């Protein structure tokens, strides 16, 4: 295996609605910043991979438009996943492992504000038995949350505490969208949105973009900024039909964590892509993360949830934090699909 490192990370401030910049302009800002911070000249980057969804852009092949942000000449080796940018990073990591490139630019973007996001997400479902019912993303998460309450060991108060902690941590994150002090009792006095979920259990709708540059071996060591090494990365998926799974557990996260070599006792922090409060609880259990571990110092997806970006941002945030602290291991997680259907775990180490 080649040693691959995260060299740089850039993100836009996340907003409910990005009205003045197109996707291309958002992408250009973060790509330019990530390349400049990586220490690798733009022309020397061997591969580019992006993550986005044409359903969110509302236009077929919208992802091709974003390539405008990279410049039209000279030709580059480029790819795209119709997924969160964390999976674009995985593809780039594989490309580098294969020896087809020594460095890669990864970016992701999403402007969810252009449509009605919960309904747009209905279109990711089985088009025969699920999508025709019109079930939206919040309702599916609420079915999962109810299963978890029925299983026991967790309460709605525990979830509200996760929301309070996330918004408080987000006060130190200039890119976060939803931040501030809140009180558990006040949150619990709010009506249900789709019971048993209240508004604070759900993520904000966010527009934004992010970019990461990764590189291998000596290319990474020579590049300049302190590299944060990817010690393991793996992703796994579960069946699509929600009624086939035990929604209260995430075996795909557990397996991805094992394959990525995550050892909970050695971690400094974890950035978990849990768009709903109860999902953080499920992910902690799946990864065996103890009470003492710092979870989502960025505020996580409850503070900003740009679709197709929030998973990549977890990797970038985790890498940035251990780079700043100088040493240690961090875990970053990304999810995709409804009710944590697909999960990616990345273990990072700063030297």
């Amino acid at each position: 295996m080649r040693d691959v490192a995260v060299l740089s990370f850039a993100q836009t401030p996340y907003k409910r609605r990005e009205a003045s910049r197109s996707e291309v302009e958002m992408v250009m800002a973060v790509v330019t910043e990530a390349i400049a911070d990586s220490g690798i000249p733009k022309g020397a980057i061997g591969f580019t991979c992006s993550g986005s969804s044409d359903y969110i852009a509302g236009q077929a092949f919208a992802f091709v438009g974003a390539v405008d942000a990279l410049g039209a000449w000279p030709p580059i080796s480029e790819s795209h996943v119709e997924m969160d940018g964390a999976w674009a990073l995985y593809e780039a990591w594989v490309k580098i492992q294969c020896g087809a490139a020594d460095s890669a630019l990864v970016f992701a973007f999403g402007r969810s504000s252009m449509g009605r996001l919960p309904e747009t997400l209905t279109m990711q479902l089985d088009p025969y038995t699920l999508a025709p019912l019109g079930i939206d993303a919040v309702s599916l998460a609420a079915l999962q949350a109810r299963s978890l309450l029925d299983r026991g060991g967790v309460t709605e108060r525990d979830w509200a505490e996760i929301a309070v902690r996330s918004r408080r941590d987000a006060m130190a994150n200039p890119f976060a969208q939803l931040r501030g002090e809140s009180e558990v009792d006040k949150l619990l006095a709010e009506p249900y949105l789709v019971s048993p979920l209240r508004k604070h259990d759900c993520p904000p709708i966010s527009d934004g973009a992010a970019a990461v540059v990764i590189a291998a071996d000596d290319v990474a060591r020579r590049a300049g900024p302190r590299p944060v090494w990817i010690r393991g990365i793996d992703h796994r998926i579960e069946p699509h039909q929600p009624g086939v799974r035990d929604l209260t557990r995430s075996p795909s996260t557990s397996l991805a964590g094992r394959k990525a070599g995550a050892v909970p006792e050695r971690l400094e922090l974890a950035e978990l892509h849990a768009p709903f409060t109860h999902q953080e609880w499920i992910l902690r259990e799946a990864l065996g993360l103890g009470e003492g571990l710092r979870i989502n110092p960025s505020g996580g997806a409850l503070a900003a949830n740009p679709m197709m970006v929030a998973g990549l941002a977890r990797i970038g945030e985790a890498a940035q934090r251990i780079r700043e602290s100088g040493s240690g291991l961090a875990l970053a997680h990304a999810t995709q699909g409804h009710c944590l259907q697909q999960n990616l775990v990345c273990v990072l180490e700063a030297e």
Partner: protein
Amino acid sequence: MSDAAPGPAFSAHHVVEYTYRRSVGPVLGRFFTELRERRIVGIRRADGTVLVPPAEYDPDSGEALDEIVSVGPTGVVASWAWVRQPSAKHPLERPFAWALIRLDGADSSLLHAVDAGHESAMSTGMRVRPRWREATRGEIHDIECFEPEGAS
């Protein structure tokens, strides 16, 4: 290039739809044909358990499945979520529950709506029965929704 200060980005109206006509294949085809006759079927896995809706391949082993079995039509609510304000895309116009329904004879749950009138009428483990659409057409909406078994 214009020197004008940047204004709002250009925007255009798009309708996002998945407008393809699709063939449902032998297994879901049978499921929908049976729904038209107001019957519900699942498919048996190698370990004897029954999946509803039926799948062509076992979600764990990938093995091809072909033994269709009758289930339900009544069942038990395995999980539910109460919708106070239905959207235009939802199957009912008044407050209702989404539910994962374990039909009698099945080992997985079917997702559908339950018309229970009020949230307090919902509970995990409650029994429900389908309310069939008057003119069935061989699609998931042939079941309008489920309703509490005791309801008149």
